[in-house]
């Protein structure tokens, strides 16, 4: 298993928003998806995930609803709001700019 990397809060928020852009998901699903997409590099710490979800909910970027999950059990589903989509686009742009700049610096040494 690849070493776990700690995620900064802002980065985690971005990943969560990105994951939810694909559709409504519960906390378990989000954590699995991030792990899957990053090929197991990123394993989200639950101590950060759930506070982040609740924070994003209070900021109005995502909204929550209890519904039936795949195995017919009650779970809390989150989905992006319109503000959330806007925020995601902006954060993604910022991340792009930042990582490009870092790459350029590392390459141009």
């Amino acid at each position, binding site marked *: 298993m690849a070493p776990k990397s700690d995620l900064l809060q802002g980065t985690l928020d971005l990943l969560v928003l990105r994951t939810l852009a694909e559709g409504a998901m519960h*906390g*378990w699903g989000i954590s699995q998806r991030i792990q899957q997409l990053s090929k197991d590099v990123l394993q989200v710490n639950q*101590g950060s995930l*759930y*506070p982040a979800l*609740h924070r994003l909910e*209070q900021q109005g970027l995502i909204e929550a609803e209890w519904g039936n999950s795949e195995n017919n059990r009650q779970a809390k589903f989150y989905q992006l709001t319109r503000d959330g989509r806007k925020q995601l686009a902006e954060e993604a742009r910022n991340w792009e700019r930042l990582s490009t700049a870092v790459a350029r610096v590392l390459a141009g040494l």
Partner: protein
Amino acid sequence: MIRYLTVRLGSLFGREQLERELDAELRYHIDMLTEQLVQQGLSHEDARREALRQFGPVDTVKDGVRDAWLSRFVEIAAQDVRYAVRSLRRTPGFALLIVLTMALGIGANTAIFSVVNGVLLRPLPYKGGDKLVELHQGAGDPSDPANDIGFSVKDLEDYRQARSFSDVVEFHNMLFTLLGRSEPLRVSTGVVSANYFDVLGIKPLYGRTFVDADDRPGAPAVLVLTHDYWARHFDEDPQIVGKVFRMNDRPHTVVGVLPPVPLYNPQGTTDVDVFMPTSACPFRSRQAFVDNRSGRMMSAFARVRPEATLLKSAADLDITAARLAKDYPQNYPQRDFRAVGLPLKDEMTVNFKPTLWILLGTAGFVLLIVCASIANLLLARIVRRERELSVRAALGATRSRLLRQLLTESLLLAGGGGGLGLVFAALTMKLLVSFAERYTPRAAEISIDLTVLGFTFGLALLTGLVFGSIPAFSQRVDSAPALRDGSRTSHSSQRLRRVLIVAQIGASFMLLIAAGLMLRSLMNVQAVNPGFHTEHLLTFRADMGFDKYPVSMPFAERQARFAQYWHAFEQRLRAVPGVSSVGAGGTFPLNELPPGTGRLVRQSHPLPPGMQPPSINVRFATPDYFGTLGQPLLGGRAFAESDTADAAPVAMVNQTAAKQYWPNEDPVGTRIESGNGSFMTIVGVVADVRQQLDRAPGAEVYLPLAQAALLGTTWILKTDLAPAELERSVRAAAQAHDADLPVSSFRTLADVRSITLTPRRVVVALIGLFGALALVITAAGIAGVVAFSVNQRTQEFGIRMALGAQRGRVLSLVLREGVALVLVGLAIGVAGAAVLTRLLGQMLVAASPQTSGPLLVDVAPTDVVTYIGVAATLLLVALVACAMPARRAASVDPMVALRAQ
């Protein structure tokens, strides 16, 4: 702590629901993880354990989420506050009115509470102050000054053996003359055991207090100054330690200065100026006095051991007293002899308690009235805002949200009221301290400390919460029907307002009764004829240094010298231009210094053995004393110049004594004995005088100044000159007579009389202020309720007038409503006053043994005149309050009224 608060506040925000949901959410995650691990091959139990391990501590996760919630709550609260501020700003007059009203109510209570706190609640500023007691011994109840015989040196040696006490210290108060300043000073001296300050737990500010070496016979005389005296006479000079002054014919060195702690003088009403050890007191250090078991002039304080209780120490005292009475029958009263120890704190505050409770009670009433009034105002406002609240409800605000915002408004108003009230109270601090000084030495401890701040904060919070929750009971804040139907309001709100106003009227009535009774008492006391003139009289003290005529001189010779001394001084005073008459005595009526007491033995009425002769006041007078004061002679003659020290001993009695002890005979010509073996012939009867305006005169006997050997005298000069001018001449005359004679306390008798009235005047002013406040607030409340009701009934009035009702009829309808409210309120008030009077009972009319007189003077607590007066005032005020709304009702245009909503 924070967790606790957030849980409590959180419930206000629907916290339980959130917790349950969070729990379910996390549980789902763990279940899914467990299933995944099972699919990977682990057993169910192992999978569960592994899942929990991978998930991490659940509580930590929950805490993380809760932190996110907390910031949300704070944000919501901030939002509520912003909204509340905006809403209040829209009606600034209303908000200001409420804040002001609340400030008055809270301010009054904070002020009075700060007094209660400083004087009664705070522990004494001595180390272990609650274990200090003052001892008394005597026959019957020794705590009554009439029965307290004081302590001798030998008494105290025996009481020191009592096991419950770690130590017993003595105190007695003497007036000495301090020489070495620009003029001789009279100092009130506390003569104490060497470890007095150690036992009390008082550390010096500068220098040191006494040590055992100071108290040995023949030790060099030392002094410790009290803070007040040092500030007043020595300008707070830190170099005072080491200075030497001359007192009692010996050099005295100042060794220390005390911090500003309250000091209790059990032997008089004057403050102690300096302290000295017993070896420095010329009376106390005489061997004959020390050896005499019956030589009693000291008071005593004791410290109870930490492991003993006050109860146990009381038992020890009883045992010791009984043993002493048995072992030395000729030195102790044989019947009913007891010794008691009273907590020092109680002794220092007992005079103040009745007054304080009354003030606290009235302040509490003011607060209740204020609260009812504000509740009324808020209810009225909610009704006015009903439309706004309904709109918001329709737009999606939950009931709890609306209630929360109304609560925030109330809390903001309460906070403002509390803060402003604190400012009001702070402004009155100095006044309160000087008011309390007359009653207790602890007056200087009155201040706004943390306890008082906590009290104010708590009170403001409580009132804010109470008001904020009223809408929850009285209104349906989320009812859509209100939108449809204009200004219809629920009847329950109007009924609640009526209940509140009636309660207000009842409370105001009781408050005004208290004010009225106190005012009548004051007027009665002011009208009292003290039995003599008070105009054009200047008084002062002259205290001869006792060392002038040494104690070694035989008594007869000393007596003659004293008489000569004072007589010469009297001649000089007579010669001062502007003085028309001179009188002298030990004290004078209305003075803080009371007359001495003695025992009356009539030659014609021998006492059965073992019975105590009755106690009687003893006054001294020069021949011109009565004439100067204007105290009429009722029979026989006054003292004359011929009643000299070597002439036959004579006496005079006052009318009360004559009636009481010589009911069927003329006392003139009979003989009495004063207790030291010598008999005097009564030569005259004089009219009664009042030592205190609010207490009836007691039996008194007068002795000629020339036949006593008084060190301290008071002088009364009849004059038309200005007091300041006369004082200068008198000081010059005193200086010429004897350069070492201190003269002090120059006051006109009229001023002295005024001073005795001051505490009562202050109390009346305070309660009167409260009463006036209550009246204004209640009047405004009545006006508000009636105006509102008129508003509601506009349609009805319009119909009535359209159908032919006269204006006057409508007017009377409105007035009737107002009067009905007042009558119900009065009924409640009368009932309440009756109950309260029954509960307070004796406290109102009893006089406390020491300085303060009864609260009510010559007026019964159920005085009909006062009750009728107050009721009439309230009715009148109510009618005036109703006048405006009534006029408006009567001037309604029927057409407009009918067309209105």
